[in-house]
């Protein structure tokens, strides 16, 4: 049997565009392919994919496999797993990567089991071992308290999902040459056991958390929904976005889409202001990429102070209004 070769990215299309995570995977995956001296490809599944293949080449792919089929319009486990199974069997990649997204969390494990191989989920670092040439897969465990490095020795492809913002995209270069290959999905409707009957968007207005350069985040210590309005005002003054740890979301104080953390959004702003949150590892998994963390918490032992650059130990109800007022003064003065 032919050897598995090549690094392959399973791409994601969101509202007709390549998802940010796909561009990041093209950036990071390119490095892995170069280290191995193997080909680098991108798989795009969807309906009406258009010019996105060319964009994939511009961001680093050598080949783009395009599977364009109305049955692939919405992500569904059965259709996407079946198509990826077909692609993997046909093109035999050595390494298969995808994003740790709602799609990746669902597709990757099911596909790995289908193929009889293994996947490491939510990797924060990938590299090629210089001796074995195997993919070293490093991921957070125990809520992020520790890191674990795995290797998949016996089966192919070696699979990994990658955390948002763990890799950087390359500069788009439209002079890059590459091949676009149309692949038939091989699907028929009877293969798809689930049905998407509705989609509900719960977007918050203003700057998107994932893109914000300033994030103001509140934790359990905020105590209720009312005080989050003050965090929102501060975020607005700084041109940023508001987030929350899991407890305020679980308690219904703020919408679930504001959750920053291991099972929520991953943010990496220049300025991250953590208000009345302890800094649990599950939360830090979502914001540790921030360039500057500022903490306001009345507990001097709170873990957040081990992560922050500047902090105030005090009751946010007193600290925050004075901080916000001075910030507004400085911004207008």
């Amino acid at each position, binding site marked *: 049997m032919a050897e598995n070769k090549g690094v392959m990215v399973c791409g994601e299309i969101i509202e007709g565009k390549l998802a940010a995570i796909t561009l990041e995977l093209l950036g990071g995956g390119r490095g892995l392919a170069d280290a191995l001296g193997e080909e680098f490809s991108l798989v795009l599944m969807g309906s009406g994919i258009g010019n996105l293949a060319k964009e994939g080449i511009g961001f680093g792919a050598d080949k783009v496999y395009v599977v364009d089929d109305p049955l692939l319009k*919405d992500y569904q*486990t059965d259709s996407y797993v079946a198509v990826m199974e077909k692609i993997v069997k046909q093109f035999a990649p050595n390494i298969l990567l995808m994003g740790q997204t*709602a799609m990746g*969390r*669902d597709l990757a*494990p*099911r596909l*790995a*089991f289908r193929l*009889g191989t*293994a996947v490491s*989920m939510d990797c924060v670092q990938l590299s090629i071992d210089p001796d074995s040439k195997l993919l070293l897969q490093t991921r957070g465990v*125990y*809520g992020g308290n*520790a*890191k*674990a*490095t*795995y*290797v*998949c*020795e*016996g089966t192919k492809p070696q699979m990994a999902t990658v955390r948002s913002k763990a890799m950087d995209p390359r500069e788009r270069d439209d002079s890059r040459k590459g091949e676009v290959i149309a692949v038939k999905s091989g699907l028929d409707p009877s293969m798809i*056991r*689930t*049905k*998407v*009957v*509705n*989609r*509900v*968007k*719960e*977007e918050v207005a203003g700057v998107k958390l994932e893109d914000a350069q300033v994030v103001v985040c509140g934790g359990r210590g905020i105590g209720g929904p009312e005080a989050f309005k003050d965090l929102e005002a501060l975020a607005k003054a700084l041109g940023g976005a508001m987030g929350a740890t899991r407890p305020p979301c*679980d308690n219904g104080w703020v919408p679930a889409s504001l959750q920053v953390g291991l*099972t929520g959004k991953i943010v990496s702003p220049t*300025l991250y202001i953590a208000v009345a949150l302890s*800094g649990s*590892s599950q939360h830090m998994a979502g914001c540790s990429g921030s360039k500057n963390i*500022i*903490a*306001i918490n009345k507990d001097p032992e709170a*873990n957040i102070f*081990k*992560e*922050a*650059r*500047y*902090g*105030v130990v*005090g*009751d946010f109800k*007193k600290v925050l*209004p*004075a*901080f916000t*007022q*001075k*910030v507004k003064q*400085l911004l207008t003065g």
Partner: protein
Amino acid sequence: MPNMIVCVKQIADPEAPAGSFRVDAAAKQVIPAAGVNQVVSPFDEQAVEAALRIKDAHGGKITAISLGKNFVMDVIKKPLSMGADELILLQDPPFEGGDSYSTAYALAMAIKKIGGFDLIFCGRQAADWDAGQVGSGIAEFLGIPSITLAKKVEFLDGKVRVERVVTDGYEVIEAPTPVLITVSNELGEPRYPKLKGIMAAAKKQVPTWNAQDIGADTSKLGAGGARTKLLKLFVPVKEGKCEIIEGEGPEDAGAKLALKLREAKLI
């Protein structure tokens, strides 16, 4: 009256303070911290809750199963005290040292032995290793559809309607039974066991099955059946120091913090 199975895992409390966390790098194992309790993994409690809500509405039976070792009976019986009808433990040295693959295989074989199920619930990921694979893996071994990241589950005649969490919202998905569903925290608080439930659970006999009982191919179990190899387990060293800004009271400190950020060119 659906027949439901819920997979639960016993782990060290994930809410334990980060400072207490230690790793034995040579053994590639976490050192159990003194004073940290064992609990049912939180997303698994929500999986039990999801099953209980369906039992409340439609009746039926809930069987909880757990693969592990060193079970603390008070802890692992929690699904029973919440309202599950049966609990089966899978404990046997061949099950140990596995990864998602070998764990999912063992649980799938146990579920095949139980048989006659309409719904299987799992937590979206275990709060120790955070892999989030076993649910999908069980469904693949059983050849049934799976829906992950559920925040709401409704049981309709011969099918389910699930609200699945996606970025910035949710999608509504239907699937025929039998089906496996993984549950996320957006489902809501799991119910507290009532005294009556706790007392009934305490009296309940809990069978333990081994590899032979479930007819498992031992080459697919435990460390031998694992498809990944753990090379390194470590606690990342945290560098960096926090500068605490002080003032004559919290308001003054707040104002000084803003000035410090201006000085550092951060605002």
